[in-house]
């Protein structure tokens, strides 16, 4: 046989990290396949398929527009208030779906983890795909709604991927922590819905931050505030100026959570198959 000399693989305690990032690259196709599986299954299993992805954000937008815009009177005289709310719902949904997907990913792929080797990081990352697809669908709805309100996409749209990335990094960072912790302690599963329930009220989804100058800095402590403001800046264009403090906080918190998540995930990864 004249195969090239195979690489030598050494297996011993604490050695798994050596080829990790190279392996992650080698397994990139698997990442794609797992993402494709999740997306495919999501739209296959439900009778209404895509309708679900649309229904939830549209209803949320409606309710928030009513509560904040009408009941609280924040949208007085503003015909496009729902559009503003929807620009907040978009990143929130991206984050929330990404987080719940990633944090449940390891446990729901138990059969793979206990039977096949691959860099485990692939699992939570691929789980984000569903959130992205759902997001893109709703983004389409947003464009249509925008046109209906006479609002054309502007040049700021080119920055949208940046804020999308920010939302995804936040959800991946938190998701890595939660999914690794869930392997060991199953009650972390219950933390996610709770976090999201609290988060939806702590984030400026139904209202604008620039009309609350006294509260703006406090709100900026929530890393999602920066993302949501960024989205509004991109999508609505004409509203307000870019608020740097919230953007910086969001980026900083995102980086810290992600770095910590990666560290904890990598540290516990080698024992996943033993305890899952």
């Amino acid at each position: 046989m004249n195969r090239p000399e195979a690489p030598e693989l050494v297996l011993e305690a604490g050695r798994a990290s050596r080829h990790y990032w190279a392996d992650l690259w080698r397994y990139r196709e698997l990442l794609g396949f797992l993402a494709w599986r999740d997306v495919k299954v999501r739209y296959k299993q439900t009778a209404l398929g895509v309708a679900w992805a649309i229904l939830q954000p549209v209803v949320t937008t409606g309710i928030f527009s009513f509560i904040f815009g009408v009941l609280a009177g924040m949208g007085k005289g503003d015909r496009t208030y729902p559009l503003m709310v929807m620009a907040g719902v978009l990143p929130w949904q991206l984050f929330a779906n990404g987080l719940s997907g990633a944090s449940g990913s390891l446990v729901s792929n138990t059969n793979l983890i206990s039977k096949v080797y691959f860099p485990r990081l692939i699992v939570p990352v691929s789980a984000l795909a569903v959130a992205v697809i759902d997001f893109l669908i709703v983004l389409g709805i947003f464009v249509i709604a925008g046109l209906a309100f006479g609002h054309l996409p502007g040049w700021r749209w080119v920055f949208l991927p940046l804020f999308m990335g920010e939302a995804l990094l936040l959800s991946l960072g938190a998701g890595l922590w939660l999914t690794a912790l869930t392997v060991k302690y199953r009650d972390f599963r219950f933390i996610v819905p709770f976090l999201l329930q609290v988060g939806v009220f702590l984030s400026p989804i139904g209202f604008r931050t620039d009309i609350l100058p006294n509260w703006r800095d406090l709100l900026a402590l929530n890393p999602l505030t920066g993302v949501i403001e960024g989205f509004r800046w991109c999508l609505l264009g004409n509203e307000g100026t870019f608020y740097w403090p919230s953007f910086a906080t969001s980026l900083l918190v995102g980086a810290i959570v992600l770095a910590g998540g990666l560290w904890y995930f990598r540290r516990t990864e080698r024992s996943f198959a033993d305890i899952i």
Partner: protein
Amino acid sequence: MSQPVISVENLGKRYYIGHQARHDTLRDRLAHGARGLVRRWRNPGDLPAIEEFWALRDVSFQVNQGDVVGIIGRNGAGKSTLLKILSRITEPTVGRAVIRGRVASLLEVGTGFHPELTGRENIFLNGAILGMSRAEIQRKFDEIVAFAEVERFLDTPVKHYSSGMYVRLAFAVAAHLEPEILIVDEVLAVGDAEFQKRCLGKMRSVARQEGRTVLVVSHNLNQIATLAGKGLLLHQGRTVAAGDITGVIQSYFGSRTSACAEWSVPEKPAATPHLSRIRLQTSEPGNVQAYGRALTLEFELHHQEPVKDACFSFQILNSSAQPAVHLWLYSADRPFATGPGPTRLRCEIPFVRLNVGHYTLRLFFSGPPGSAFFEMTEPDLAFEVVRLDQPTLFGWRSEVCAYFETAAWQVDPAR
């Protein structure tokens, strides 16, 4: 290649078993921690009960390119742990293993199959999970489909497949992997017989013709004996024997505790004549009988008075409860049980021709037709027939026939 493709040195894997239940939730963990603190404060020196358990200990061996190694051992011997370490699913606690070559491991048939996805989609998904590239799967797609015989159902979700189809498809994907080292755990125990045969054939050709290395775990010793050339016997996490497969299989039988099998009747009224004891002397220890060797059965008949024209017979039943052999002793031909009991009978079968497989006994004890019938019993006693003498191209399989004849073949010279 002079270097071994796998070399394992002093490999060990430790697990901790808590004596309380596992703490799956944080609440349990906190509660347990708190209880532990209280206990330690009350009686210091009382450490929480956590026990070490070495699933694998000091295992060393080498595998050369092209070797087919059968790993055998009883349940809990560490076979699966060893395969998991070599497949990189889990890390060893101590020791090291060096692997030279691309490894594919098949610890389960159809890992990652999703019931909602179609056959076609699952081929791609499963192939990717097993480490194939998309291009590789595309290239082999038709071959995989043909091997699995699922052409008509390619676009049906696999949740609608019969279990046979499901397994065929799953194995077909795995069989088309092209690793340098293939690790297989007990997967051939599934599927219909015809398909199993094809899988075995495929694996054999992988190993012999393509020079690949195969590590296989199976409880089916006939399968192992046919497939593997080398063997590794594990017992409680340690290597007990390694080397030529025949020798390893023999030491596996030797490691079983009981040398011969006995059955004796649980309490029974002493008045009526009955069978009180059976002793099975197989050619190999542990109720294993090699084809072509002698098998001896001893029976003890309990009776207080002479039995008039006693008839005793037994059948050897195969695993589907079909009688394969019937042997008898009638007092009319050769008087027995003519005095007060017990009577001991000994039956030797000098050359066992039974096909491989598991067998049980059914015994009859009676008077002549139309008179007393004492007993028909199927004791809790079984033995296994194996062929250690020679391999066969298609593998020894219990369902191909009931027994073997000795025969002489002649080939007329070709024109």
